[in-house]
């Protein structure tokens, strides 16, 4: 029946499919649909850059225009992944520079990007439009200068939270005078001052500029100059939000804000002083997203600001807001969907603010649309968690960090099993959960039994035994990412649930009790997983097999062993721990089994795609029902 439609018709139909899942499902229907789909796929998302290789991607999808990719494990954000671990984007850029001359977009997260890569991007892709580097590192402002100078049609340059070696602010001046295409510029992570006049001229000549996130070095007195030149801005990140307290500065700022009728998002506010907050009041009623998480303003001033933002949907704030401020938030902002409360003094021994579990309870009571929470606090109770769970059964993301590890319910001194149990039991749509506090195996039983939609779970200092891990691995059907640190989980649950790991993107375990022997066994039995041991004490085989490894990172892959492992990473391969310069790539046949949980009802026969990759002779047989391995 597929043959009765000309390819062009099918291609046209497929062009309406934007979701990767839909496209993957389509490509598994039959060989000819697979072929047509792969020629017209324009966007690729690769959740783990080591799950697949550039060659494999390019061979299958020859006409890609947009790549989104992630590198290091999430716990790299908290310094748990040693420097030099990997996540290098350059091999991808090199391969794509030859294969995808029409590439327009590159979005990377937690990857190492060099100036060389940026220069190659600038030179290779004539129609390059979008560069988003989220939490990346390894490049300098010189690389940015190449991008600015050469990408004639650049629309987005977003460096969110990247660590950039800041040689000077001169890079911004490399945008040519005829560059008018910018829609989004986020330079908030940079330290150096850019030439303000260059910035002013750039902003003035880009009529489509919607998002402008300045860095701290842009002085507040000069912000009005920019706002007047870009009154169409939808998202603004201020620079430092302090200046000499002078009435002319204040009135200029107030006037400039009043001109920006489209503003929906505000961020920045470094070194904010309360005196200048009222300058923004005119835009507050339109604001839906507010990031005050770098503003060290106290609760009363925060409350005055926030209670004017009646349409607020997202608030990121420091714990200076305190319980009273959160109560006010709950009373004023009925559209609130996402709340993140960050700690102002995370390493202090004593609480410095009056923020407790009560603040979160208030918000859960007052904000009917609340679905996403990140909350740092110093005390929690089962009762509070149960209340929150009952108030907000539609919660999707719940991340709670009680600052003291293994802190019990402060009222009863019991573990917080019941509380988190209530969360997973009531919040049936929960996709992401991070837990803290005193937790036994019981909480994992609750999670395994109830958290059926859970995709990402983060655990620290919790559990009693392997039973806990077993509950999670055997019960959480939708689990994609599991990250564990400092828990007494060992070999048994891991090995008993080895097959589960092929259905997930990755597993991270650090400071647990997984032995070297178990890692080897896992690597031997599961050829489609890369089982990587990270150990800075030296080669794992210099210690007994029963010795626990420092860190373990397991991920599914069709690319085989990675070639860029540093000296402290070993891949478990059969009976050996292979380092990066171990024996050369062995011929492998990578066979993916039928994944019964993901069987689709279209067809029951396998569709084959035989590809030979030079040097590794890997044959990839794509099978019906196999979940997208890019995911």
């Amino acid at each position: 029946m597929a043959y009765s439609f000309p390819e062009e018709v099918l291609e046209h139909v497929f062009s309406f499919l934007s979701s990767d899942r839909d496209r993957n499902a389509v490509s598994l229907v039959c060989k000819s649909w697979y072929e047509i789909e792969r020629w017209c796929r324009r966007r690729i998302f690769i959740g783990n850059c080591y799950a697949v290789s550039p060659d494999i991607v390019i061979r299958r999808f020859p006409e890609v225009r947009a790549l989104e990719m992630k590198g290091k494990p999430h716990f790299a954000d908290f310094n748990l992944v040693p420097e030099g671990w990997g996540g290098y984007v350059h091999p991808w850029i090199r391969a794509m520079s030859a294969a995808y001359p029409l590439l327009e977009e590159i979005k990377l997260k937690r990857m190492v990007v060099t100036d060389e890569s940026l220069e190659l991007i600038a030179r290779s892709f004539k129609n390059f439009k979008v560069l988003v580097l989220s939490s990346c590192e390894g490049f300098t402002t010189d690389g940015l200068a190449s991008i600015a100078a050469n990408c004639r049609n650049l629309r987005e340059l977003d460096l969110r939270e990247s660590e950039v070696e800041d040689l000077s602010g001169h890079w911004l001046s490399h945008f040519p005078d005829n560059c008018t295409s910018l829609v989004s510029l986020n330079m908030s992570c940079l330290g150096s001052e850019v030439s303000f006049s260059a910035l002013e001229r750039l902003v003035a000549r880009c009529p489509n500029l919607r998002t402008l996130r300045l860095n701290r070095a842009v002085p507040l007195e000069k912000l009005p100059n920019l706002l007047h030149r870009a009154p169409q801005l939808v998202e603004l990140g201020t620079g430092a939000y302090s200046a000499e307290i002078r009435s002319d500065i204040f009135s200029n700022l107030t006037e400039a804000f009043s001109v920006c009728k489209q503003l929906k998002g505000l961020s920045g506010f470094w070194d904010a002083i309360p005196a200048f907050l009222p300058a923004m009041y005119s835009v507050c009623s339109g604001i839906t997203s507010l990031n005050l998480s770098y503003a060290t303003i106290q609760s009363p001033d925060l409350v005055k600001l926030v209670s004017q933002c009646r349409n607020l949907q997202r608030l990121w704030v420091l714990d200076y807001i305190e319980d009273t401020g959160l109560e006010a938030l709950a009373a004023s902002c009925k559209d609130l969907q996402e709340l993140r409360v960050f700690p102002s003094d995370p390493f202090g021994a004593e609480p410095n603010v009056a923020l407790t579990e009560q603040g979160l309870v208030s918000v859960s009571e007052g904000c009917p649309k609340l679905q996403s929470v990140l909350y740092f606090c110093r005390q929690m109770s089962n009762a509070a968690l149960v209340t929150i769970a009952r108030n907000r059964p539609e919660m999707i993301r719940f991340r709670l960090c009680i600052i003291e590890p293994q802190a019990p319910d402060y009222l009863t001194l019991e573990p917080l099993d019941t509380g988190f149990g209530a969360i997973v039991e009531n919040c049936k749509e929960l996709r992401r959960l991070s837990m803290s506090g005193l937790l036994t195996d019981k909480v994992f039983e609750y999670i395994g039994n109830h958290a059926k939609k859970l995709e990402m779970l983060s655990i620290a200092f919790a559990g009693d035994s392997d039973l806990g891990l077993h509950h999670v691995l055997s019960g959480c059907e939708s689990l994609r990412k599991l990250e564990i640190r400092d828990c007494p989980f060992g070999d048994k649950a891991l090995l008993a649930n080895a097959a589960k790991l092929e259905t997930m993107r990755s597993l991270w375990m650090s400071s647990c009790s997984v032995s070297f022997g178990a890692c080897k066994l896992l690597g031997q039995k599961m050829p489609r997983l890369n089982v990587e041991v990270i150990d800075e004490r030296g080669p794992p085989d210099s210690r007994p097999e029963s010795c626990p490894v420092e860190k373990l990172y397991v991920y599914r892959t069709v690319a085989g062993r990675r070639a860029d492992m540093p000296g402290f990473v070993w891949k478990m391969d059969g009976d050996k721990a292979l380092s990066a310069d171990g024996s050369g790539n062995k011929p492998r046949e990578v066979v993916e089994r039928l994944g019964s949980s993901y069987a689709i009802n279209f067809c029951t026969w396998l569709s084959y795609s035989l590809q030979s990759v030079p040097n590794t002779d890997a044959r990839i047989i794509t099978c019906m029902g196999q979940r997208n391995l890019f995911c």
Partner: protein
Amino acid sequence: MSRGNDAPPPEPEYLGALKTDLTLALPGGGGGPEAPKPPAKRGFSDTADLKLGSSCHEDEDSAVTQPPPPKAQVVGWPPVRSYRKKMMKSGKYVKVAVDGAPYLRKVDLQLYTSYQELLAALEAMFSCLTICNVVNERKIMDNINGKEYMPTYEDKDGDWMLVGDVPWKMFVESCKRLRLMKSSEAVGLAPKTTSSKGSSTK
């Protein structure tokens, strides 16, 4: 910190998987009747030990026993991103000019807690110089050039002041830039032996 010891008996499938031989049999293989012995519960300090253990004991009973580390120093906890930590530190960078040097440097005044530390850092930065430590009136006579420099700074009002007169915190607050001036030019600013000033080095 006491915990309830009432873990429910493991289900049969799990039992089957808990053979002492490490196998990858999927849960359900006929299990032995004996209940598995869960590894000893670990308190926080024990798990922290595991992380720090540099050698490994042959003990079946697992945990490396070392004295627990001070609680404050847990890597990556609480989970605050290094980007955020960096951004929260405001840092107070000021330019440092040295008479006769071809380029300026920058220092973050918040890295130091006293004039002593700052001057030591400046000496290290401009290693060929000796900087006159006006606070302690310690003249470090020496070396290559035999030149002495007086540390001065421009304050918020735009005036050039001698470093060391005001309390350290006030100095950090008001300093906009530093200049190491050749002593020979610093007429009239020679350090006095006035300990009654009471300017604290803190």
